[in-house]
């Protein structure tokens, strides 16, 4: 059991002018289950890190107080357990059981008590494997379940979940939510940060809304908070249930074919696939994990050499260069024809500032400098990045980084845009902007291919869908 008390709490990261979070007065009692909401940049993750005692005094400046059971969070660490977003960087050990045992060892739990507690924690999250299973063999959802077990084994009074499902496909996210629901007991206080409110509501009995730089805006039962603030929150980017999203069907019929995939495959990652990509059409590629969706995106993007079959570009895409397959095009030619947006935006950044990042592609394709500058300014404005023109791409928030990664692919005005999970973990506002942006591109005659698990996104945008099956299930 643990209670939380914040009085006038604020935190500013070292070297930043703006406060990440400020003026928060909040009291959470033993056993309460709280959903922490707020638009991007409201400081939800910072607040969670403060509760977890993971903001070292030398890494920034604090205002007001934060206490767990009357203690400084740095001294109350034993009472708090945290599950973070990225499954890959949370697992420490090579075997599942060892990973759960890791925290128990750190806390000095006697050796003969460790394994019974490991088994109990694995049972509580419904972990289906033996504890000798290699952690590397788990799916993302299973890894998050394991991370949760590692935290629960420590029997925290306060459980903090920082968007634990943001990096997962729907099936994996379901696994994690079921595990959380099953593992909660009346003695555990829960604070959850989650964009997708509808998914989080069954787990909580109280909603707290933060305003950027302005403390707590709303606090109460989900019904009361959403009745009073639902529309405003939806407009600010929170996924409030019952607020419909935009739908952008195609304005006209699709145009010329741009790419033809003929038994295109890459064993064992992708089984042979036939596919036509057309201008003026939004095509969504669906399928379960392991079906090779990302591989297909890389193949269509001319970034991987096909292991089987052929990918041919038409004259509408490649002009006179249709005899060479896309993976053998020189990079500047490729960037001028096909834009690729990667699942992890950070993989894509090459330069030190947002402005240089946008200018890179046009410069490489040999555009004159005034035209480059005009393109960059237009994209900065269109994707709400002007304020961040001088910032380092690696310091951007998730939504900003996603907008930048899409903008960089658009900077060379390619006829075809290929995106891998562009809406993963995005708030409602960025989501809507992406739908509009892609729909505008399509209506202007570009081809748009998205690999996605996001059913809402498909419903809002896609004109046609292709569903891949796992390579091993095919004859």
């Amino acid at each position, binding site marked *: 059991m643990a209670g939380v008390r914040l009085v006038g709490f604020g935190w500013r990261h070292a070297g930043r002018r703006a406060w990440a979070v400020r003026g928060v007065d909040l009291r959470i009692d033993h056993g309460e289950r709280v959903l922490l909401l707020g638009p991007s940049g409201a400081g939800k993750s910072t607040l969670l890190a403060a509760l*977890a005692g*993971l903001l070292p005094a030398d890494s920034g400046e604090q205002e007001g107080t934060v206490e767990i059971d009357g203690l400084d969070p740095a001294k109350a*660490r*034993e009472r708090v*357990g*945290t599950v*973070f977003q*990225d499954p*890959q*960087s*949370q*697992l*420490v*050990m*090579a*075997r599942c059981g*060892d990973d759960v*045992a*890791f*925290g128990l*060892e*750190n*806390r*000095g*739990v006697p*050796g003969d008590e*460790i*394994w019974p507690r*490991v088994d109990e924690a694995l049972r509580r999250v419904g972990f289906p494997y033996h504890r000798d299973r290699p*952690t*590397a063999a788990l799916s993302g959802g299973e890894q998050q379940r394991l*991370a949760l077990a*590692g*935290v629960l084994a*420590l029997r925290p009074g306060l459980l903090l979940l920082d968007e634990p499902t943001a990096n997962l496909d729907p099936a994996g996210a379901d696994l994690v939510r079921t595990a959380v629901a099953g593992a909660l007991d009346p003695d555990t206080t829960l604070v959850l940060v989650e964009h997708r409110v509808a998914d989080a509501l069954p787990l909580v009995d109280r909603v707290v809304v933060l305003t950027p730089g302005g403390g707590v805006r709303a606090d109460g039962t989900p019904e009361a908070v959403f009745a009073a603030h639902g529309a405003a929150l939806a407009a600010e980017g929170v996924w409030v249930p019952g607020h419909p999203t935009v739908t952008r069907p195609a304005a006209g019929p699709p145009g010329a074919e741009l790419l033809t995939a003929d038994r295109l495959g890459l064993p064992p990652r992708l089984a042979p696939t036939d596919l036509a990509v057309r201008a003026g059409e939004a095509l969504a590629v669906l399928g379960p994990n392991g079906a090779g969706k990302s591989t297909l995106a*890389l193949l269509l*993007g*001319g*970034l*991987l050499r096909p292991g089987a079959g052929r990918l041919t570009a038409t004259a509408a895409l490649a002009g006179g260069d249709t005899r060479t397959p896309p993976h053998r095009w*020189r*990079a*500047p030619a*490729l*960037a*001028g024809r096909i*834009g*690729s947006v*990667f699942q*992890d935006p*950070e*993989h*894509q950044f*090459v330069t030190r500032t947002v402005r240089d990042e946008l200018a*890179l*592609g046009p410069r*490489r*394709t040999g555009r004159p400098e005034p035209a480059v500058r005009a393109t960059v300014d237009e994209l900065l404005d269109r994707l709400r990045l002007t304020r961040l023109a001088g910032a380092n791409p*690696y310091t951007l928030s998730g939504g900003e980084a996603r907008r930048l990664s899409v903008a*960089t692919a658009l900077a060379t005005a390619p006829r075809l845009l290929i995106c891998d999970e562009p809406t993963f973990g995005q708030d409602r506002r960025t989501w809507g902007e992406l739908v509009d942006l892609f729909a505008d591109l399509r209506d202007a005659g570009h081809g748009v291919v998205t690999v996605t698990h996001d059913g809402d996104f498909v419903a809002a945008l896609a004109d046609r869908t292709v569903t891949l099956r796992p390579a091993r299930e095919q004859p």
Partner: protein
Amino acid sequence: MIGLEPVATPGAPLARRNPVAKLAAGLVFSFLLVASLDPVAPAVAIAIELALLPLFGIRYRVLARRALPLLAGAVGILVTLVLFAADRSGRVLWAAGPLLVTSGVLVTALGLVLRMLAVALPGVIVFATTDPTDLADALVQNAKAPARFAIGALAAFRLVPLLGQEWQMLTMARRARGVDAGRNPLARLRLFAATAFALLVGAIRRGTRLAVAMDARGFDAGTPRTVARRQVFRPADWLLVAGAAALAGGALAVSVALGTFRPLIG
């Protein structure tokens, strides 16, 4: 790269020994062999190593595959030395134009290559029979290595395979952005350096996140750590180390008895 994941039958009598004992035995064996420059002592040592292999539960074919880079390197060194070493003493065995192979150069080259193999094989055997987790546990429990170092290194080690995928991603992302080097070797070098830097930055960021997650689970708590997997250093483990010393000494003794012993110093 030489693979590091264990490939041995875990139940084999010597594979079961304490990882620290295996490591110590390997080091003792290797260090003693460095003492001689002749080909006989390492040849005897290699024979001993290969003879002991079944006791470690490693099949010869598996070892050959794992030590392939080592063997390839050995052949390369042998050829280079035989053809180009300054030492041209002894009987002429083969001469073709500027190329001259003498018995002196052959003995020196063979000595060097055999030494390299004899010294490296114990390391290959240790890692082929040892789970990294067990090694870290034993280093902490039996060799009193700091847990912060041993467990931290173990966690970092787990991220190494990800670097390969990351490199491929970064290369593709650069190509997608219109960046490639074409045929220009200088541009290629620059691109390689830039990609390597990005890889490093990414690795540091990932490592930082992992460190935060580890501390969130009390890794920095300062409470004395307990252990979930007990590693015991038994008398048999001492015997393994002593045996390694004795066998290496035996190999040197054979070399002395045959009169081929050439000490490294003196």
